[in-house]
């Protein structure tokens, strides 16, 4: 099965490992209400270190953009 690439060329492997971990946790734990810790935390940290560096290098303007950003009014409605 073909997989997606990360925006950081060197981060794709870390991304795929993390995604796999997350997808299992999401379906088997999170959706079932199981809150016994997240096994993917360490993988996520490593992946983020890599991808955040790539975002800075590529000057992608994500900094300071509020969550659900321009949607504020629409979410409340």
């Amino acid at each position, binding site marked *: *099965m073909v997989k*997606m690439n990360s925006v950081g060329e060197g981060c794709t492997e870390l991304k795929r490992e993390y995604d796999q971990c997350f997808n299992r946790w999401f379906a088997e734990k999170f959706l079932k209400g199981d809150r016994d810790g997240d096994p993917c935390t360490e993988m996520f940290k490593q992946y983020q270190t890599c991808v955040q560096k790539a975002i800075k290098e590529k000057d992608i*303007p*994500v900094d300071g953009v509020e969550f659900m950003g321009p949607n504020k009014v629409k*979410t409340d409605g």
Partner: protein
Amino acid sequence: MVKYFFNEMDIKSTWDHVTSAFWQRYPNPFSTHVLTEDVVFREVTPDNRLHTRRLLTKTNRLPWWAERFFPGNLSRSVYILEDSIVDPLNKSLITFTWNLNHTKLMTVQERCVFQESEERPHCTQLKREAWISSGVYGFSRPIQEFGLARFKSNQAKAMKGLEYALANIHGDAPHWHLRDSVKDASEKAKEAAMAATEKAKNLASAATPQKPKQYV
């Protein structure tokens, strides 16, 4: 003037399946315009909702007449943010998606709500809204028209992609239908014709099983 789009449909899969497939919908044969995908923020809130921000890179295909608004030295890729909130108790997934760059040329903001159907718990109701605007002086109207047309075609592809993921992950039979829409009758007829064409294509491709599937 901002162009507004709305449609509503039923996806014939459980909300759990749809929400799981949401994270795994790329790549699919209908998403060739999506180049990269990353999670850039994720947390479970104290009230047990999952907040996620994903960054996507997409190609930016433009009609020839819009090329003039594009300085040649600018990056042609479009960066997209997709924020989402999963609420497993109320069985809702809300997404908000918008482009980060090329915003003067065009801004597309999309809001989707995936909610477990009240009448039929095995179905998921999807409400999709979008707002399309352009700040190009004197040309905002044709650009918005183009943006709306492209959005419509992309959202149809997005549904096929989600179906594809549902079939891959859960073996769910692909099926969804438009429940309600603000579109006029002629557009509905056009869509029906397009769907029929697509169906014919699918039948045709199903009839040639010797061709290897590219994405499996």
